């Protein structure tokens, strides 16, 4: 797993999925706030 190509593949895959999940959570929180406003 020390190879830069393999590391890049794993970091990009799990990183992108984590960022997408985070974006959903942020959008959820923002819509929650605008509901209450």
């Amino acid at each position: 797993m020390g190879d830069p190509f393999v590391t890049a593949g794993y970091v990009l895959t799990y990183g992108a999925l984590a960022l997408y999940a985070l974006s959903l959570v942020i959008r959820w929180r923002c819509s929650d706030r605008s509901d209450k406003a």
Partner: protein
Amino acid sequence: MNGKRVLIAATIAACVAALVLAVQTPPERVQGDYAKLLFVHLPSVLGAYTAFAVGLVGSLIYLIRKNLTADRVAASSIEVGVVFTALVLVTGMIWGRPTWGVWWDWGDARMVSSAFMFFFYLGYLALRRGVTDPAVRARRTAVLGVLAFAQVPIVHFSVTWFRTLHQPATLLRPDVENAPIDPEFVTPLLVGLLAFLLLYLALTVTRYGLAVREDAQLAAEFGDELAGRAITEPRLGGAHG
């Protein structure tokens, strides 16, 4: 809510297990560590296929029953599928560079058809953004969701129909018992597939909840004055008609 927490916990546990197994798997005889990219590339493919299949079913249900829940499920699933397809393209390029010597080959049927599918489904998401009225949006995108799915079998069988750079399917093949894969690679691959299916479920369920909330906000904001109902339909026969 409790079920959702269980799903998220199971997803995180499966992802950690998939990562640990991938690290512990010995290097492949010819490709070395590069072969371990299979454990993220193939699960991403399966995630995308599953997402677009659910998108197809949701779109068909909407067209038959005019059920907005089915429309939201289809749209949420397709959005997650687009993320997985982007990962398929990126991990494929990263794997291709050290093993094939190229990042991309415009002559390869699998690469080009996958890229076309990615941009087609991006168009689906763009169309969804462009229409405000939920009923009009649902009808238009449901038609596109059904048409777009035709690309999934084309992408999958492109390696069988055209003999280009990409190798034939490893697991998703009729003679799966003769799959060209070492037994040591099977367990990490299966755990990776399970992890990505759980990821697909968790992301789609979350995106669906957000879609319900977005539609409720839209209805509260515009009421019956949504674009599709407020704008009169165009008629021929004017001054320049």
